[in-house]
């Protein structure tokens, strides 16, 4: 869509908080709660995303820098909202039984179940998103609008509706990511901010408008980060990765898998 949404991290945070609230609502069935939380988070974050798109972003199409600033404002408001309404502290989200424990392959190598499940879950979401964008009418329309808005409109695509749907979809996926993250890290008002720079780095690295590139970039950056970590420490590893990306942009300003054709000019 050509929109940089700085509030995306906060949509992840909303997804994580949705998990927390659902666990509060059904304390006796923690095992089920995560399953329930996935569609709930999708709806909560997706609806918030559509609201943001309809109320703010649609006035700013074609002005990417202003969009960036306005969505940053949204992210500040969402953070403070969570702080005021729920709590400025982190909230506890419990892991269901079937996700805790670990799968011991041998004495040295053991994989915790929650990470395994989340890995599988991410693959499923990725596949679903891929199919949605490549095989459905909505996906076709989304790609058409992002490549050439005027022409898509001339062919009868209701571009405004597609915009809202695309944005809502992106926001909903962020919400699902929040559910997954709530099983791994602390859930607090700053959850989103910690991930926003990382996630844009992944997109810049992989190339904009390209799901496969994002997957490759996300995996390789994450693995690189973890590989440097033991020898250099967590913070230094992150700095090295950032410096690497800044240098990488020199060689491939449009990422690993650049968009081709007319869409690439924007």
């Amino acid at each position: 869509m050509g929109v940089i949404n700085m509030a995306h991290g906060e949509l992840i945070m909303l997804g994580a908080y949705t998990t927390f609230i659902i666990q509060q609502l059904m304390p006796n069935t923690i095992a089920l709660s995560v399953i329930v939380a996935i569609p709930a988070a999708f709806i909560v974050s997706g609806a918030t995303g559509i609201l943001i798109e309809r109320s703010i972003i649609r006035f700013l199409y074609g002005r990417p820098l202003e969009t960036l600033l306005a969505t940053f404002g949204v992210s500040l408001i969402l953070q403070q909202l969570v702080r005021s309404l729920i709590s400025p502290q982190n909230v506890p989200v419990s892991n269901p039984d079937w996700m805790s424990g670990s799968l011991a392959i041998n004495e040295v190598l053991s994989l915790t179940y929650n990470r395994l499940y989340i890995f599988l879950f991410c693959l499923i979401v990725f596949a679903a998103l891929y199919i949605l964008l490549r095989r459905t009418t909505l996906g076709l329309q989304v790609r058409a609008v992002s490549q050439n808005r005027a022409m898509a409109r001339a062919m009868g695509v209701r571009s405004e509706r597609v915009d809202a749907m695309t944005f809502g979809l992106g926001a909903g996926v962020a919400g699902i990511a929040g559910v997954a993250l709530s099983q791994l890290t602390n859930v607090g008002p700053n959850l989103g901010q910690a991930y926003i720079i990382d996630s844009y780095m992944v997109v810049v690295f992989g190339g904009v408008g390209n799901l496969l590139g994002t997957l490759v970039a996300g995996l390789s950056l994450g693995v690189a980060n973890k590989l440097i970590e033991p020898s250099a420490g967590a913070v230094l590893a992150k700095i090295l990765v950032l410096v690497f990306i800044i240098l990488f942009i020199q060689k491939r300003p449009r990422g690993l898998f650049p968009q081709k054709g007319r869409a690439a000019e924007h």
Partner: protein
Amino acid sequence: MLIARILKNDRGGQIFLALLLLLSVLVPLLNLGLPKGHALHVSTYTLTLLGKYLTYALLAVSVDLVWGFLGILSLGHGAFFALGGYAMGMYLMRQIGDRGVYGNPDLPDFMVFLNWQELPWFWHGFDMFWFTLIMIVLVPGVLAFVFGWLAFRSRVTGVYLSIITQALTYALMLAFFRNEMGFGGNNGLTDFKDILGFDLQSDATRVGLFLASALALAAGYLACRAIINSRLGRVAIAIRDAEDRTRFIGYRVEHVKLWIFTFSAILAGIAGALYVPQVGIINPGEFSPLNSIELVVWVAVGGRATLYGAVLGAMGVNYAKTWFTAALPDGWLFALGALFILVTVLLPKGIIGLLTRRGARS
């Protein structure tokens, strides 16, 4: 006169500089001349606060130069500000001498605390003021030059550049949080005693710093205005409006961008160096991406591409921040967030745009 020539056709600038002159005469007089308790007495607290706003205003002017006239939205200008601040902080640290908590004449307190035996190489020279002054200009300048050279050469533009600059300041923040870096870790540098032999706590020194900030702001404003009036400035505006066309006509777009970006970073560094002695602390929090984005909003609120709008925005937003954090601490982020949205959606030209539109209509 040079100043008159620069300010020709710049009514906003004339008004602003006149107000600044008035402020820098009146405030010190009311602070030093009148006894405490007098109705018109300006407390030293207010004076220092105003001095702090002036350094913010200089920072905002430097952002407006690259954003308003060159079209580069830098979300990392806070980094240059903080680097200038750290350079000054290191000088002030060395001035403490053996009056620190541990009384070690050779090492700053935090190094004694970390059991370091000798001064790291990059701290040498910071006990001399002239060396510090060079570093205040050189460190942000060189960083901006190298970063800009890499980024502009490969034609990283628009939001990508914004994100990369944000990554830059984020990386620096993480780096400065590390104790091993030798910049005081997350406590930063503080407990300053004096500057050039003058006690930092005394009223007269505060007035001196206030005047220095006002002078730097005026000089920075005139320099930016002079650049914009020059041929270089015209090319910059052409780049902002149609980068590809300017390139096709034959201008070296990346060179223009690089020089103006570097100059702007140096201005930001100077603002940081004046900021630190007035607030008395510098820590890695100054590098946080939020700070850099906030200062872009000062410019947006005041009005882009006017320079004096940036000053107005920096002063106004920071006054509101001071007021809010005292009266409604929870409300500030709501207000700031709403400001981001309102300014971009409803007031793309900021307060100055609103004022001039009113003026044109009547």
